[in-house]
């Protein structure tokens, strides 16, 4: 119904223009300058108007121009923009476009409603295209696909559990107890990325003794996003670039633009990925002998007759098992499954002159490396853009996501029930397999039989999510010299997140304990954001352009998390009311932030750009909720190569740039109150003062960032270098600082010091070979960060992990924020630093005969320590693979935990990894009547890793990265990555790809 109507409209419009103006048609064909291939989709338009067209599949275009039009602008992503002057009478213009190797003409979003060409950009804004993100070797989830691709970022997978969970830290430590994760903005909609725990803590007791922080390790919600929908990603790493996002931008902003339709023939694209996933690395297990089996009971010289009897019993058990051939590798049994990966995507895009659309559906389904785990994501997206008139355009993006993740039970626990912790004390000679009746033997070496737990438990997360937004752009007035636009933008992100953790009553650890757990959580979250901006561009002459922006934004959020824990279950039931006891907990949080800003950009002879702006922000999370905090910014860039005096041939870009900006980080919800938590006894309701003291004067952290750099590109952009130095300071750092326990409080919210991060980012892009038949491009990035606590108005204190004796993050003035201290022979000593010395990534794409391309990404992280408690637990459980190796005159597995030296378990987590490698072939097609293209390819993701780290993977975090604080447990903090406690092992994947375009 719609389509004929709009085409009618188009026709009408065409007719009316025909009637009104004398006009002519310009036609032509546009090709690639090197290969000579026609380029479809190139925009040809009349400068300063909305009038334009797009080349068709064969690179042809036709554009009606009015009399008086003197030039046309031809642009296409990845190519240099060309302006051609029209000569009267010449109606056929064929031209070639040169590839923009240094991406100088790329448009980068810098303000909330403004953008700038990369050649004039004052910041190092990283851009990741859809192909770089997803076109080499697709990762399981969107967040994992960022790994190794963002210079200046420290990206760490928290866990290998299906469904994602990634920590992204831009330019060092931005916040310790505030939000440390970047803001994700998808098509202008603030996309919630919280991790909501399923309440597994009720079973594991992980947060009950060593650390109050939640260790459920839930997935992060950004993982819901379908990577195949992404057109490109821009990453604003710090305040100097992101200041216009105000009090939400301190940890950086990741701006994601999804694919939009293009007018022309409707394009249907079908992609299928089929592959498998396997564990990346197994640590290996200890091989027992009769003697080492006996040693599990006590030493041979122990005079206790009980010990000697037990020794004999173990020896006999081992010998019997050995003779029966029943020696098992339980690590392999649990983590060794191969999972099937199926990923099907279909997209449909196209549209007419006025309305374009992009419609896509995606279904990702894969099994994990542990039986019963897996991930299933269904996503539908519809993006529609419509030009109401020459002056008004509207766009709508909608996305519905349904995802389900079965994540198993891993990570730290204090009850011996998680798979890893149970494995750590289970030797190879015990039989845990079920008998013919399906009954699992009791594990005499741990509280649980991990095989039984794996086969009978459920830990499922289910998300139903709708994300939708709209924008409207109105050209209020337009003259030769100035244009005024009004931009309105709003979005809503709603999800319902349902967790279900079921532990039947017949499990070994339940049968004599609480007799079953059914933990069901239900979270509803709504985020909204709305903004309005007025942008005026004033161009008095060709050498000067002034852009003024003013705007206001408002964001709200409401999260309501209800978790019910049922214990003593009716046999075989999971329903909450089929139980003898239930406890319900609710946690709600709500905020409202708003900001107003103005910004002025000045461009001089297209070579010098100044920009200045200021933003005022307030938030209900601040102690003074009505107070506006002020965040200014300013930047300058000078592209010397564009100056008239610049005559150096070959150097086509030489830019000096500097930027300064401030942004904030609002305190977490509730930090201004001292809560009274529920604490009942004897059937009476009680409230007990929380050990976290609120602070009514809490204010946002303030970040100031200065960034400066040099961009050079030579040989027509075939070699380009981007070098950046930054100095990022965070004032009034929000800390939950330790109070003397005798105050009755353990911690207090306080703005208590300053941090600094200094760093260097170097990016080198090369195109060593560029011939019609062979093309090789390569990009090398190198970055490092050094963080330091420059001021601490409170005494130094341990903030993370599990206490001094096992190594802890320790905040101390004058020291790196990421330092790890621990007890060595009774003294608290510096024993490590979680910050890498540097990181490096190396991306290559080699294309031969136009159709065959090889792409790979290597990622090197040098330095950075982990706290390896996985090794500690296997040592204590006497199952480490190297337990019997000699160390300091005794067995390694005995020496390490008893040495009184926390530094033994603080270990270098360097690695070199082939993150992604893929080989793709476009099958040349002769008959193009139906099929447009067929692609086939093979890829491997995270397949090869070189590391000396002992553990499943050097990338790990027991505490997650953005786990929310709930009624029961504290959320993640900004430092705790790298704590390794029996995680879900990381996996690698390999896939076969087929893609067909119609």
């Amino acid at each position, binding site marked *: 119904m719609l389509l004929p109507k709009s085409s009618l409209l188009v026709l009408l419009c065409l007719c009316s223009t025909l009637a009104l103006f004398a006009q002519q048609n310009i036609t032509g064909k546009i090709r690639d300058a090197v290969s000579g291939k026609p380029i479809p989709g190139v925009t040809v338009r009349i400068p300063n108007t909305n009038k334009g067209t797009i080349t068709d599949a064969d690179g042809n275009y036709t554009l009606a121009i009015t009399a008086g039009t003197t030039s046309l602008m031809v642009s296409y992503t990845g190519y240099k923009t060309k302006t051609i002057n029209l000569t009267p009478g010449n109606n056929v213009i064929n031209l070639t476009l040169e590839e923009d190797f240094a991406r100088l003409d790329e448009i980068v979003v810098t303000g909330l409603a403004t953008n700038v060409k990369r050649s004039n950009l004052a910041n190092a804004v990283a851009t990741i295209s859809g192909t770089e993100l997803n076109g080499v070797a697709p990762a399981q989830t969107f967040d994992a696909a960022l790994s190794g691709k963002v210079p200046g970022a420290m990206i760490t997978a928290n866990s290998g559990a299906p469904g994602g969970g990634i920590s992204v830290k831009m330019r060092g430590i931005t916040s310790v107890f505030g939000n440390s994760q970047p803001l994700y903005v998808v098509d202008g909609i603030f996309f919630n990325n919280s991790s909501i725990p399923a309440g597994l803590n009720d079973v594991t007791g992980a947060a009950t003794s060593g650390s109050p922080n939640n260790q459920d390790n839930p997935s992060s919600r950004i993982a819901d996003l379908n990577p195949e929908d992404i057109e490109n990603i821009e990453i604003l790493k710090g305040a100097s670039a992101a200041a216009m996002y105000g009090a939400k931008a301190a940890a950086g902003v990741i701006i994601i633009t999804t694919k939009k339709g293009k007018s022309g023939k409707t394009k249907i694209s079908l992609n299928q990925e089929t592959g498998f996933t396997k564990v990346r690395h197994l640590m290996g297990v200890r091989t027992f002998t009769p003697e080492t089996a006996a040693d599990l009971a006590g030493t041979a010289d122990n005079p206790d007759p009980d010990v000697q009897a037990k020794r004999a019993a173990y020896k006999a058990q081992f010998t019997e098992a050995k003779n029966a051939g029943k020696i098992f590798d339980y690590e392999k049994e649990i983590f060794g499954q191969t999972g099937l990966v199926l990923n099907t995507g279909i997209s449909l895009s196209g549209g007419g002159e006025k309305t374009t659309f992009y419609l896509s559906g995606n279904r990702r389904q894969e099994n994990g490396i542990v039986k019963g785990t897996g991930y299933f994501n269904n996503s539908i997206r519809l993006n529609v853009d419509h030009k109401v008139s020459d002056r008004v355009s509207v766009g709508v993006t909608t996305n519905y996501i349904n995802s389900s993740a079965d994540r198993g039970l891993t990570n730290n626990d204090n009850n*011996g029930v998680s798979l890893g912790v149970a494995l750590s004390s289970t030797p190879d000679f015990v039989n845990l397999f079920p008998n013919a009746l399906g009954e699992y033997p009791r*594990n005499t070496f741990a509280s649980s039989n991990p095989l039984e737990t794996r086969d009978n438990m459920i830990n499922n997360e289910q998300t139903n999510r709708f994300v939708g937004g709209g924008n409207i752009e109105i050209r*209020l007035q337009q003259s030769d010299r100035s244009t005024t636009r009004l931009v309105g933008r709003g979005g809503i992100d709603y999800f319902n997140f349902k967790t279900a953790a079921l532990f039947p009553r017949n499990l070994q650890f339940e049968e004599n304990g609480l007799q079953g757990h059914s933990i069901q959580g239900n979270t509803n979250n709504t985020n909204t954001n709305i903004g309005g901006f007025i942008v005026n561009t004033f161009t008095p002459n060709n050498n000067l352009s002034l852009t003024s922006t003013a705007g206001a934004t408002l964001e709200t959020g409401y999260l309501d998390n209800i978790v019910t824990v049922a214990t003593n279950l009716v046999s075989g039931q999971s329903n909450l009311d089929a139980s003898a006891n239930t406890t319900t907990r609710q946690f709600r949080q709500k905020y409202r932030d708003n900001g107003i800003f103005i910004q002025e950009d000045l461009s001089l002879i297209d070579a010098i750009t100044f920009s200045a702006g200021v933003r005022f922000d307030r938030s209900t999370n601040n102690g003074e909720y009505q107070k506006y905090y002020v965040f200014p910014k300013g930047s300058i860039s000078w592209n010397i190569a564009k100056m008239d005096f610049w005559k150096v041939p070959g150097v086509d870009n030489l830019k000096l740039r500097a930027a300064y900006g401030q942004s904030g980080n609002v305190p977490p919800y509730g930090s201004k109150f001292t*809560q009274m938590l*529920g604490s009942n006894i004897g059937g009476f309701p009680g409230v007990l003062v929380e050990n976290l003291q609120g602070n009514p004067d809490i204010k946002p952290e303030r970040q100031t960032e200065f960034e400066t750099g040099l961009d050079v590109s030579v040989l027509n952009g075939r070699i380009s270098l981007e070098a950046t130095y930054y100095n990022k300071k965070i004032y009034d750092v929000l800390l939950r600082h330790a109070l003397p326990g*005798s105050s009755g409080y353990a911690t207090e919210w306080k703005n208590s010091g300053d941090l600094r991060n200094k760093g260097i980012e170097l990016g080198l892009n090369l195109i060593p070979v560029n011939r019609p038949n062979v093309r090789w491009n390569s990009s090398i990035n190198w970055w490092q960060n050094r963080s330091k606590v420059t001021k601490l108005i409170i005494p130094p204190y341990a903030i993370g992990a599990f*206490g001094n004796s096992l190594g802890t993050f320790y905040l101390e003035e004058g020291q790196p924020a990421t330092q790890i201290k621990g007890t060595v022979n009774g003294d608290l000593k510096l024993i490590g630093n979680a910050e890498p010395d540097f990181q490096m990534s190396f991306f290559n794409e080699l294309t031969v005969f136009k159709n065959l391309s090889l792409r790979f990404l290597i990622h090197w992280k040098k330095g950075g320590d982990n706290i390896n408690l996985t090794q500690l637990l296997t040592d204590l459980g006497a199952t480490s693979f190297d337990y019997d190796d000699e160390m300091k005159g005794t067995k390694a597995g005995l020496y390490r935990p008893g040495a009184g030296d926390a530094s033994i378990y603080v270990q270098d987590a360097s690695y070199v990894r082939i993150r992604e490698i893929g080989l793709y072939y476009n099958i040349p097609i002769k008959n193009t009547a139906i099929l447009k293209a067929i692609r086939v390819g093979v890829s491997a993701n995270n397949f090869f890793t070189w590391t000396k780290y002992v553990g499943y993977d050097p990338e790990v975090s027991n505490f997650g990265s953005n786990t929310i604080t709930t009624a029961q447990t504290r959320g993640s903090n900004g430092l705790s990555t790298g704590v390794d406690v029996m995680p879900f092992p990381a996996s690698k994947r390999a896939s076969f790809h087929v893609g067909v375009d119609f």
Partner: protein
Amino acid sequence: MKKYLSIITVTLFLLALNACQKGEINSLNTPVVGGIITDPSRSDLFNLVTGAESGMRNSLSTYLDGTGIIGREIYRFSGAEPRYTTDLLGGGSKLLDNNTFYITNPWSARYQVARQCFILLDAINNTRTEVASDVQKKAFTGFAKTLIGYQLLLNLNMTNTNGVRIPVPNGATLGPVITNPAVVMDSILKFLDEGKADLTGSEVIFPLSDGFLGFKNAAGLIKFNRAIAARVYTYQQKWDNALSALNESFFDLNGPLNNGVYHAFSTNGGDLANTMYLPPNGNGEIRVAHPSFATNIIAGDDRITKTSLRTSSASQSGLTGNRDVIVWTSLNAPISIIRNEELILIYAEAKMQKNAIPDATVAINRIRTAHNLPVYSGPPTLAALITELLYNRRYSLFMEGHRWIDVRRYNLLGTLPKDRPDDDVWPRYPLPQSENNI
């Protein structure tokens, strides 16, 4: 253009509308301290009392396990927590750490209850007499002060000469760390005495759990208060004071040994389960009696039944035990705060220290015969009687948090067994690291 104008108007209107939401967003989940102490209602006060009683149980199992392990009453084996067998027993070159859960968690939990009690005191200060009369208010304050004294005593038990701080009212500056236990005990007694004074003549309107069964009125709470005071006087070796405190307590030489005040537990919603209960013959998470428990017990002593023989002995880190601790028989079982059996032993101790040997012997025999042992037939000397007393305290109060403190106050820590060559018997916990942060 008119069309756009209307759109613009609507957009601006929407923005303006949103900007109009100006209210503060308050705590959505819980009451807040600032709110509850201003003009509290009767239920507010009840909730605070319940919270205080409930809070006394937090990390109590860590306290009992810790003192039980150091005092060589038990081994605590855990697949997930190594430090029960390393740090607490001094395994290898391990020392007690000042920032690890075994000290920080119970320490903070006790002071948290003290803080709660001060909040209750503030709330009572701001309570209108229509909500609670002065006599009724006195019961609240008396109960709060009694708990502060008791909670402080538990922390002093852990750190002893490493010191504690005296809890202070809300908003007051913390005092110094006091390392002289005698001075701290005077403070504890001051809280207890003030509590007793307030309770005297008061009327209890607040609810208490059945852990306080028989002690829920003012008279009962005074008896509880004095029983704790008797324990403190005993630690102070003020025998006359101990005896007079006993007289005001629920001490009953011939009464039921288990009469007393308890922490109630349940698996009900919002309540705490008794985590000192571990199913017998379990694996992974195990609490077994130290082997010396069975080897040192006199044949026939029925207190052996506080443990049960395992079907298969349990081992970890070169330690083995074959008797599960079954002092608590379910997740709903109560844990004692103070009971008559201890009071009888305090009576015996005070009497023998005052050289009233016959009285002391009567009390000792009361305990011995109750546990299936013949009457005391050893020499009537103080030294021999003290040995007998400590034997009885060891087995009568097994895993109730006493043995380590008892051997420490009689300077007998050296007599505790070390099972592995490098093990240590710690005399006290270190002062938590956070106490140095001031």
